[in-house]
């Protein structure tokens, strides 16, 4: 049994390959780094991991929890939560993507749409106002350009990562 995943770390692609050895023993290659663990699934959804040293001695165990998809996986280990993303996916994230696509930073309600197709806008100009969890978020495109499409209306609900407005860089003079 083998499981392979790719993650993005510090802008680099890292391949992680876990291979079942025998019993509870797993060998994991993170890039060129080889680690061994005794791993056991727990009834509450967690996994108990004990590192195995080169000399075969077994280190202090931790319980880890994971959830998510191949694109965005959250893992909680040693009392910290890490959100890992696959290299190909840069979905969601901040309001003003520098690619000119304005995305909803979270699920919420559109309070106002302040642009129309054909408008010339600046990088930090507020194009859409989204309200979520009692907070207002002013969203901008992050680039100067012309509005190519507006795919939302006022008072509609939007999902996290949903594209709301697309701005294309103005042609160089």
């Amino acid at each position, binding site marked *: 049994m083998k499981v392979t995943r790719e993650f993005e770390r510090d802008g680099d692609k890292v391949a992680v390959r876990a291979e079942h050895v025998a019993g509870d023993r797993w060998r994991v290659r993170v*890039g060129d780094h080889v680690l061994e663990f005794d791993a056991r699934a727990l009834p509450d959804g967690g996994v108990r991991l004990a590192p195995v040293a080169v000399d075969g001695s077994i280190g202090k165990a931790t319980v880890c929890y994971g959830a998510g998809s191949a694109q965005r996986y959250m893992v*909680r280990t040693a009392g910290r939560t890490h959100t890992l993303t696959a290299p190909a996916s840069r979905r969601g994230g901040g309001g003003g993507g520098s690619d000119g696509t304005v995305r909803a930073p979270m699920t919420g309600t559109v309070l106002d749409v302040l642009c129309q197709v054909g408008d010339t806008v600046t990088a930090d100009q507020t194009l859409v106002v989204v309200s979520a969890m009692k907070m207002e978020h002013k969203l901008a495109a992050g680039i100067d350009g012309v509005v190519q499409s507006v795919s939302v209306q006022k008072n509609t609900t939007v999902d996290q990562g949903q594209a709301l407005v697309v701005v294309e860089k103005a042609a160089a003079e």
Partner: protein
Amino acid sequence: MTDHPPFRRVLVANRGEIAVRVMRGLRELGIESVAIHSDVDARCAHVLAADHAVALGGNTATESYLDQQKVLAAAKATGAEAIHPGYGFLSENSAFARAVREAGLVFIGPNPEAMDRLGGKKAAREEAIAAGVPVIPGTEKDLSDDELIAVAKKIGMPVMVKASAGGGGRGMRRVEREQDLAEAIAAGRREAKDSFGDERMIVERAVFPARHIEIQIIADKHGNAVSLHERECSVQRRHQKVLEEAPSAVVSEELRKRMGEAAVSLCKRVGYDNAGTCEFLLDDAGNFYFLEVNTRLQVEHPVTELVTGVDLVHLQLAVAAGGNLTELLKGKDLTPRGHAIEARICAESPEAGYIPAAGLLELVREAEGPGIRVDSGVYTGWQVPPFYDSMLAKLIVWAPDRATACDRLSQALRDTVYLGIPTNVDFLRRIVDDQAFRTAQISTDMLSQRPELAKGPGDAPSDEVLAAAVLCQALGRSGGGGGGAAAGASAGSSGNAVWQEFEGFRLFEGVGGAR
């Protein structure tokens, strides 16, 4: 506490953790609970916890939990005799409290007349002055710009310039230098006019550095009011409390007594009944100044419960039904015992500017163990709606002393798992483990002075973390119930839409001994 339940059936006009907590108290007293809910909340934890549930329709708070007519109709339709408002929503709305009374029902909170006298900041300040409670030196009436500047110069810089109708920090500014006063007042007036339609401003001495100390009061309809002592809520962000504790590390027995007496005298003056909280600022020299009264049960009430041994919801119900505190608290020693700390767990990313999050909680595992209490409103598989407050649960610990309580809270946060959406759990742990918090060197501006606590280490995940992630995917499972899927598929692929949408990650379940 009572030989017979004070009510037969009570409607809880709230949602999430506080509604669940109130219902737990109702059940302990043998009282039936009625939940109300919006459309998205049809399977919220409080609905599952209730004996009866009424759908109000709508999703926004205005369409549901704030719609007084709908709430009253739900109470009538289910035969509830009383309404517990929780906190937020309609809890401090005196018009609602009146409407409940006029409908022949009992409002589990203070009488609307007392709420009105303490409602506005200015009105409350006047009552406090009349009750002999110290207030922050400053203006009381509507003044011109020049008069405000004159007062500011007289009380001494720095000062706070605030909207008289204010709240939530809007229209509020701290001014360090006399020459900046005119501009700050003008900007404050504009902001206040936009926010509240009222451009009146007040000037107060800036109490700094300050600690937020509040006194829990319980009062009955017979003129008795009792202090249940202080809570310290100095760790705040933009007037939102982050960590709360009881007792305060800096409040002496003598100061506790004086602050308690001040709060009791204010409550007695306005004919207050039920639970309430008097908020104060405490300066370095040990002077305390009245801020405001919260005329409801507070989010942080559990820390008081843990150190005094009283159940505030039980007491609220008993006094609302006409109970006498002399009887209810007879023989009880209310002296604070041990130390309790509460951490508010919210769906937000302090690391990314505190941006709140909504969405699916794919895996929830709450802390447990000796001295640990979790007041939660969520569960694995719950879709956190974007329409309401971002608080998911409260983690509260008790220990014989503050140092042990800090250790216990740190470990409980370590054991706390909410996956699927970002939360502030790691941020809370960074604060609890910080030397300043451990030594109780806290003040209301701690978080703004120490932005690194919110930012976090920002380090890239180690090889061990990446390995753990893949082993969790190989062996673990999340979500409740449901069947597994085929193992062995190599990924990096766009994956399976079903497990992306709901119930978390379930590929590879059943491998390597997992059940």
